[in-house]
């Protein structure tokens, strides 16, 4: 197996994340007010899970692109399985759901073979046309629209949108992108997840006015604004290390990631509220399921990718 370490900046970035996690762990276990808080064990579990997530991502990024693609394909699989296990499905569609799972290896094969146009159109066109056709041929019309609609929405979120994370690794080198595709990927994931945490912390400390009480009663205007401002600042500070962005583009992406990360988060909240469940699963202790953790990324990944592609990879991405 060929090991291809990512650029130095990415390694430094990962080291920085480990440092942050160590500090966070120290604070949670040593600060008396946090140690005796009512949600102390949940907080500890959550940080423990962060360690696992960061270690797994580090391994995926530091070996080679193929391993990283397999990791993201597996992430899509876990998320799709969680989604299909949560939503009502029709017994008659069992085989159709099997085809839906097959979309994952095929989509990641397009990424692996760097077939950009196919990567873009496969889920929105071919899968979109094929699965309802398969359903129609089964001949059951009761619940057809709901089944076709929910299935495609899930595939778009966890196969098409998340696939953009993996495609960042396939982008050609760009003179200003000093840390390559892995740098962009690191920047995107770090900012998205940090934005989630920043919104949570700002909301906990200053939160007064609710934003979307019917969807997510704990989200506040103060949390949202504080989180977005933090993310803009970080996006600007980190951009020269990981991206080709100039100052204006860096501030722009900070705003975009901060806002749309929030939208991704509440979209999955709305899904769970509609289904009458609290967490999407219990695979990640302290966080819930996979969908609970990747919710923001389902929005930020495709938007970040196309923002970057539009401004810096015009020749490659049409």
């Amino acid at each position, binding site marked *: 197996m060929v090991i291809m370490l990512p650029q130095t900046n990415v390694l430094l970035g990962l080291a920085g994340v480990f440092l942050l996690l160590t500090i966070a762990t120290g604070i949670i276990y040593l600060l008396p007010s946090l140690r005796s808080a009512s949600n102390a064990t949940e907080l500890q579990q959550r940080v423990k899970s962060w360690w696992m997530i960061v270690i797994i991502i580090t391994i995926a990024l530091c070996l080679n692109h193929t391993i990283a693609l397999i990791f993201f394909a597996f992430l899509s*699989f876990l998320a799709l399985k*969680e989604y299909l296990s949560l939503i*009502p*499905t029709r017994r008659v569609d069992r085989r159709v759901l*099997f085809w839906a799972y097959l979309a994952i290896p095929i989509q990641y094969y397009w990424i692996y073979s760097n077939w950009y146009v196919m990567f873009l159109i496969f889920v929105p066109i071919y899968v979109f046309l094929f699965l309802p056709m398969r359903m129609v041929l089964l001949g059951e019309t009761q619940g057809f629209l709901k089944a076709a609609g929910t299935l495609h929405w899930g595939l778009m979120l966890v196969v098409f949108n998340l696939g953009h994370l993996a495609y960042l690794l396939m982008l050609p080198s760009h003179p200003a992108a000093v840390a390559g595709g892995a740098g962009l990927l690191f920047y995107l994931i770090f900012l998205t997840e940090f934005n989630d945490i920043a919104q949570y912390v700002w909301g906990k400390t200053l939160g007064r006015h609710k934003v979307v009480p019917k969807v997510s009663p704990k989200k506040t205007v103060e949390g949202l604004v504080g989180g977005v401002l933090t993310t803009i600042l970080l996006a600007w500070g980190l951009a020269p290390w990981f991206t080709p962005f100039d100052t204006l583009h860096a501030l722009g992406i900070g705003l975009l990631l901060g806002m749309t990360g929030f939208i991704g988060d509440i979209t999955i909240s709305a899904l769970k509220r509609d*289904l009458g469940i609290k967490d999407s699963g219990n695979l990640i202790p302290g966080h819930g399921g996979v969908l609970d953790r990747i919710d923001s990324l389902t929005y930020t990944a495709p938007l970040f990718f196309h923002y970057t592609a539009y401004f810096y990879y015009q020749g490659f991405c049409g």
Partner: protein
Amino acid sequence: MVKLLRLLFFLLIVRLVVLIILGLRIRHKERLPVKGPAILVANHNSHLDTLVLMSLFPLHLLPFLQPVAAADYFLANPYLAWFALHIIGIIPVERQEISRTKDPLAVCATALAQGQMLIFYPEGSRGEPERLSKFKSGIALLAKSFPSVPIYPIFLHGLGKSLPRGSFLLVPFFCDVFIGEPIYWTGERRGFMDLLNHRMESLAAEENLPAWE
């Protein structure tokens, strides 16, 4: 040798299928028994039920786990019979006992006396996927003979979607496992069966499970 094969089968193949392809969401795992004798009673929708129930326990308990299974189905041909008896480790029972002189559950009694943990499906067969059918009362006979053996009701959801009766195509779904507090023989058959049915229904109602129509 066969014991090693059984261990490897459960360590490699069963864990791969159950933990990676399917994935478990277990509620009240702490209620599981740590030693026999015990009876695990579950609803039955799929061949995967047995594999999932057996993966709930650490591998060192594998020799103590034995599913009670239909002799007419699993001993039908020699290959399946070898696999069922030696790899899965079933206790075969006759479903249609013609002569009333022989007790079909005598083998189960022997195993319980030896401290085994039995997996028992009182629905009698896999039935309609994701529908709980009424329990048959064979379990009551066993409970009556062993009033001090704990009986754990376990409700499974999702496996009937993944691999229902009559299908060979495995479609991945998370499997929900709800483990109940143990119950014991109550002194009379109807009361015991009502209690067991009631416990299963309340386990099934613990969470909002998605429809499968």
